[in-house]
């Protein structure tokens, strides 16, 4: 989508850039208004970011003067078992929750798309968790997952033993992923629905004439029609899922035995310990990782578009 636009506008862009000052003069008021958010951005985002970068080379604790220690923070993080574990947990969360979330949302969208009645009822119902704060969702699911919670009651009535949904090391992360998928699927579903309804009906008719059945027309008509949407949801979802924090803070606190500790959670823990230099280094490594992932994604998608 975005690829088409920039490709089409490219020749016009160059002369425009030269006239940037003329344009500023033309609409001074507008730029004056823009100036305020720009100043705020510089003051509250860019300067602290730069400051954090400098601090990542120190042993700063927020209270005492910082001492320059070179790249010690970075080498310590790279050698730290805990960091590697948190990285693995983060990737596990991101991959499973993204793939699972898209799959569930697509199934839901396909099902709802076919409905002639009650469509908006289902849309609204599945969208409610999206507008519910994650903390509230997490608290509700914590109750569901409790030792004497709803889920254990349900499986108990079929004769199964209670499961430690949030206290079993092997299960806890997946419990959190299920909650996250449940919270986010409404959003992806709505986006998928909009895309589905945009696919022209005549393509399906043509496929039918060519003898394609339900699944074949899904593969050859629906999926290609959803390509842009999938790309959008992927880019949007990756950064969001790498930043996972709320549900882990509320539901497990990183436990049991650090099995749900993600990178952002580790940044938080080290902040509590007032290891602000170390935390800054951790944040920059994390930022760098996200940058690489975004670049790869951008390259892949841009290439496909061409």
């Amino acid at each position, binding site marked *: 989508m975005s690829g088409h636009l920039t490709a089409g506008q490219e020749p016009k862009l160059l002369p425009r850039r*030269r006239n940037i*000052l003329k344009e500023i003069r033309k609409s001074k008021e507008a730029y004056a208004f823009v*100036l305020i958010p*720009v*100043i705020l951005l*510089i*003051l509250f985002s860019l300067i602290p970011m730069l400051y954090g970068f400098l601090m990542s080379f120190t042993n700063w*604790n*927020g*209270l*005492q003067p910082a001492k320059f220690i070179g790249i010690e923070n970075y080498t310590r993080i790279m050698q730290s078992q805990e960091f590697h574990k948190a990285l693995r947990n983060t990737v596990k969360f991101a991959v499973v929750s993204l793939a699972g979330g898209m799959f569930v949302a697509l199934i839901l969208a396909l099902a709802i798309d076919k409905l002639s009645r009650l469509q908006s009822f289902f849309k609204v119902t599945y969208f409610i968790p999206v507008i519910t704060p994650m903390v509230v969702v997490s608290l509700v699911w*914590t109750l569901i*997952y*409790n*030792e*004497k*919670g709803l889920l254990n009651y349900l499986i108990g009535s079929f004769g199964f033993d209670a499961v*430690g*949904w*949030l*206290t079993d*090391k092997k299960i806890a992360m997946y419990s959190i992923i299920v909650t996250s998928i449940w919270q986010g699927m409404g959003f992806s579903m709505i986006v998928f629905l909009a895309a589905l309804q945009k696919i022209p009906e005549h393509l399906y008719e043509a496929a039918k004439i060519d003898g394609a059945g339900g699944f074949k027309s899904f593969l050859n008509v629906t999926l290609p029609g959803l390509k842009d949407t999938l790309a959008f949801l992927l880019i949007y979802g990756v950064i969001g899922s790498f930043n996972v924090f709320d549900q882990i803070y509320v539901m*497990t*606190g990183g*436990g*049991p*035995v*650090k099995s749900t500790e993600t990178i952002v959670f580790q940044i938080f823990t080290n*902040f*509590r*310990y*007032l290891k*602000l230099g170390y935390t800054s280094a951790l944040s920059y490594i994390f930022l760098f990782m996200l940058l690489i992932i975004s670049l790869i994604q951008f390259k892949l998608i841009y290439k496909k578009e061409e």
Partner: protein
Amino acid sequence: MKHKRKMSAMLSSLLLSIVVLSGCSGSGSEANGNQPAKEGQEDSGKQVTITIWDNYGATTPIKPLIPKFEEEFPNIKVDFQEQPWDNFWDKMAAAASGGETPDIATTGLMWNPKYTVFGLFADLNALSGGKINGEDINSVYSEGMIKAATTDQGLFGIPYDFDSYSLYYRSDLLEEAGVTAPPANWDELVEVGKKLTKDVDGDGKTDQYAFLVMPDWYHYEPFLYANGGKVLSDDFKQAAFNSPEGVEALQFYADLVNKHKIGVNWTPDRGSYVAGLKDGTIAMFQDGPYVMGLIKNSNPEQEGKWKITDAMSNKQYGTHIGGTYLSIFEKSKHKEEAWKFIEFLSREENAIQIYKTSGAAPGYLPALESPEVNSPDPFFGNEVPMNVFKAAVEKGTPNPVVSSWQEISQAISDAVAKAVMNEATPQEALDEAAEQVNEILAQE
């Protein structure tokens, strides 16, 4: 070229305006900050406001005493700010690094050493001259409590309430099972435990356990001390909890759940263990005096069923010491007034309120002798439970005073959880934790 120059002129004016703006805001706040201090210095008879951060929650003994204090000291106003227990130290970290601290706070041993080393708290020895309400500080508080709050930088808190573990037990359940005395050592715990662990409703699952096993360091620590173990070496430079004594203690602690099956592993998804006390899941547990208030409040129907005795010994008697302290911040502009408030709260008649209002144990030891505290309690079988805790705080071991205690205790908690959940042998779990702890200590 022309455009470029204009561009750079614009950029530099932008930068300039930022500098001016940030400069303004900086000097503005400074001026604001200085004013009240100047007033205070000019005339000490003028009104002064001290801010206190309190994490006691609903049953705080501090808040109800404020009107009395303000009446006695009309020139001091107390701004009481209730703080949540759960993220008290997150707020503290933010406040400390932002430089916006209150005058007094209720603090604890978990984080205090770190902040003291960083210079957040004032040295109360210097401020008080070693005396509180005219009495020698060392004579009215437990030696361990004072030792636990003392670093090279001085004394960073006055004990407000204390926490040391003793054994709570359901005397009615013991009697029912034909047990005449509560277990005094580990062997007796296993023996008594087998009689107390039962399937009461007959559905094939145990629903009454003899002992509460919390997978965390503070419930494990009394076992470590009772077995002659130590957390850190005497110079606080090396981990010592993975010694044979420590491993044996953790083995026993985990065996209560995995081998003897008389202990219930109270995982977080079960909620507060007070629920387990109420519904009879737990017959015995070791915890601090503040639990007396919790049981009384939530389980009034259990009056007369609970009793309290010394924590169990193995090679020796052992329990740890903790508690709430009152600390004054180094940045406070009203340290004298803040100290007056701490002295006021530490007077015997006010320290008693810690027991009366929140059911905890006053750190000011003479208060334990007062008839209001030291009297038979019908809830605890007409015995005097506070005497048990008083003995515990006098004999107990304070935690190591190291600035990264929070991280160290977390590593030990993880090891305890691993062993109790049978994911690693106690030796493996503790060795791994010791490696982490040694690394942390090397950076102190």
